[in-house]
């Protein structure tokens, strides 16, 4: 077992990196897309193995304490791998038309495959790092890896979106590095050996002797810096551009896990701040403010949105806000937030892929033109509409449940203003998005503009891609398996949920 634990965590990072290299050697676009599926399944097995070890034996701390996988990061790893599986499966169908039209050439496919696996490796590095420095390295690497994924289709708009993303997130992540330096400086009085000073476990162990003012300053930089990458308002302005310009399977990764990876870095920092400030809720308060702001800003922008992918992008801002808010509320809210993260990632990655396919058929993402989608593109249309309904919190789906628990936590802890603002934001999103969804689903097509839209090819193999994620959400909304609940509770305990 000892050999295994020292090997499995580096392997989790190394395997995607190796696959990224292999992609350069493959000689056909179809083969590369299939290799993505095979590769992600292999990584998924490894992740499952590692997660099972964490679940049964507790946190894995390996390689001179530099790498660690505890319940919190293991839970994130599970969500991540689900998102990547969805993205890989959708990509095969998504790019097949473009391969036929010779738009998705081998050269582009190689770049796509390598960057896709590369970003997986970088996100994995973020999750398995115990050292705040290497965690930062992974986070910056995700920015660099995913930048060119945005402009797989090289248009002026996608290049602009890519540049905005690259600059904003690089600056944001650089600000987070200032936070890490401040955190390192705070260990000065704790007497930790300076090479071990950035290890999270060491900092947690000697939280009492860290300098509280420096840690507070560090947390502000961390929240603003990583918050930029996570898409918390008001630092979210890169997000709708990047999400709407990237091809569907890439937007799925962006929205499904890239944002969560950045938020994870903030969550890692939270228990440290709380321990240093004596559990007064100082750090949680900051998260509540940013969370509420994100929900409200997103709500306003969703109302007037015309582009379906931009609407989904703003919905991601809303949901990241909800997760931050849930964690900020503490107690049961942390549990709800982590549960919400899983639901949102599954639902949003599926919705983005469907929106991408619908957009391919219509040639536009403008919701005023993509009407009557249930008839024109039955499978993807239904998936998109069902996804939007689940995202805004329609009752039997799991997102309703997690939002409801958050609301209950806020009311129970007598934070009526928070509860009211949360309800207002979610309500506005509900109405705004529902209006868009209804018009997309049933409003008849105007004029004869639709004559040139060939009916989307319906193949039965696409149906499970929609049905499986939706039924998972449906089941989770009605019944939660005991192991999952235990897993989430353990993960929540690390960031101050009920223990």
């Amino acid at each position, binding site marked *: 077992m000892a050999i295994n634990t020292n090997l499995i965590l580096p392997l989790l990072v190394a395997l995607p990196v190796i696959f990224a290299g292999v992609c350069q050697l493959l000689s056909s676009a179809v083969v590369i897309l299939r290799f993505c599926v095979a590769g992600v399944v292999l990584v998924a097995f490894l992740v499952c193995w590692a997660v099972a070890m964490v679940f049964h034996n507790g946190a894995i701390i390996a390689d001179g304490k*530099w790498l660690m996988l505890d319940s919190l990061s293991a839970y994130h790893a599970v969500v991540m791998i689900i998102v990547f599986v969805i993205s890989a499966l959708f990509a095969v169908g998504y790019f097949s038309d473009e391969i036929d039209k010779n738009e998705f050439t081998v050269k582009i496919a190689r770049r796509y495959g390598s960057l896709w696996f590369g970003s997986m490796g970088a996100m994995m590095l973020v999750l398995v790092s115990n*050292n705040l*420095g*290497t965690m*930062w*390295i992974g986070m*910056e*690497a995700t*920015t*660099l890896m995913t*930048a*060119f994924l945005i*402009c797989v289709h*090289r*248009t*002026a708009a996608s*290049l*602009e979106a*890519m*540049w905005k993303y*690259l*600059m904003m997130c*690089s*600056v944001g992540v*650089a600000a987070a*590095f*200032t936070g890490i*330096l*401040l955190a*390192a*400086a705070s260990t*000065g009085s704790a007497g930790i050996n*300076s*090479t071990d000073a*950035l290890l999270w476990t060491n900092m947690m162990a000697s939280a009492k002797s860290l*300098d509280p003012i*420096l840690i507070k*300053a560090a947390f502000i930089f961390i929240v603003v810096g990583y918050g930029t990458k996570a898409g918390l308002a008001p630092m979210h302005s890169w997000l709708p551009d990047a999400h709407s310009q990237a091809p569907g399977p890439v937007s799925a990764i962006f929205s499904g896990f890239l944002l969560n990876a950045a938020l994870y870095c903030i969550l890692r920092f939270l228990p440290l701040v709380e321990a240093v400030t004596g559990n007064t809720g100082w750090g949680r308060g900051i998260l509540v403010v940013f969370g509420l702001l994100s929900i409200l800003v997103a709500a306003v922008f969703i109302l007037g949105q015309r582009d379906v992918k931009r609407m989904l992008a703003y919905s991601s801002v809303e949901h990241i806000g909800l997760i931050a808010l849930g964690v900020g509320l503490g107690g049961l809210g942390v549990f709800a937030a982590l549960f919400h993260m899983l639901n949102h990632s599954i639902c949003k990655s599926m919705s983005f892929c469907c929106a991408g396919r619908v957009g391919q058929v219509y040639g536009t993402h403008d919701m005023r033109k993509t009407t009557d989608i249930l008839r024109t593109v039955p499978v993807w249309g239904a998936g998109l509409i069902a996804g939007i309904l689940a995202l805004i919190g329609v009752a039997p789906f799991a997102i309703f449940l997690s939002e409801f628990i958050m609301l209950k936590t806020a009311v129970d802890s007598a934070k009526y203003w928070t509860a009211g603002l949360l309800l207002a934001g979610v309500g506005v999103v509900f109405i705004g998005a529902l209006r868009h969804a209804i018009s997309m689903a049933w409003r008849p097509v105007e004029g004869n503009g639709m004559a040139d839209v060939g009916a989307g090819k319906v193949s039965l193999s696409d149906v499970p891609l929609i049905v499986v994620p939706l039924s998972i959400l449906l089941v989770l909304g009605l019944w939660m398996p005991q192991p999952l609940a235990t897993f989430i509770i353990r993960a929540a305990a690390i960031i101050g949920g009920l223990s």
Partner: protein
Amino acid sequence: MNLLMDSILVLLIIASFMLLSSSRLSTCIKIGALQGLMVGLLPIVPGGSALTYRVTAIAVVIAGMKGFVFPYLLSRTLRESNTFKETSPYVGYTASIFIGILSLVASFWLDSRLRLPVAAASRLVIPVAFSMMMTGLLMIMGRRTAVNQVIGYLVMENGIYTFGLAIVRDVPLLVEVGVLMDMFVAVFVMGIAIYRINREFDHIDSDQLNTLKG
């Protein structure tokens, strides 16, 4: 020995102001290179922490990257694109200098308020670092050309690196190398991005010329 350190720090500030006031991109790259070189060599200025082989080696590598590799990548990008001057920045040059002075004052004020523990030889290091960070941000937000925004990013990184030198005694080698790698790739990626943007937009321009012809 503090005299040498302080003179370098003053030179860093002067470099920031020159960056804020010059419109020629090639000049900006050179000034940025000079600033990077000086920042990179800060750890081996006598009077600071004890010199070890490790510190010296890393300092030389960082100085080389900031002073030669990054500017080389940037000037190659500049040659390939057809922009040589920042003609209409969002924030004008006079205003930039004015904001630069204000941010310098703010940096000294902030330093006097924060009273951070300083591990470096000179007390001036922290305000200078703050001022470089703000200058970098100002360049990213106030300049229109992509090359200048990248220089702004590098100036901001210079500030953060200097700040790190001032308050952290020792960053693990692996982290330091990783950060350096990330920065290298960042500049590289930004360079390719600028190249592509130029090509795409030139392409659009020539298309328009074609349509106007007939």
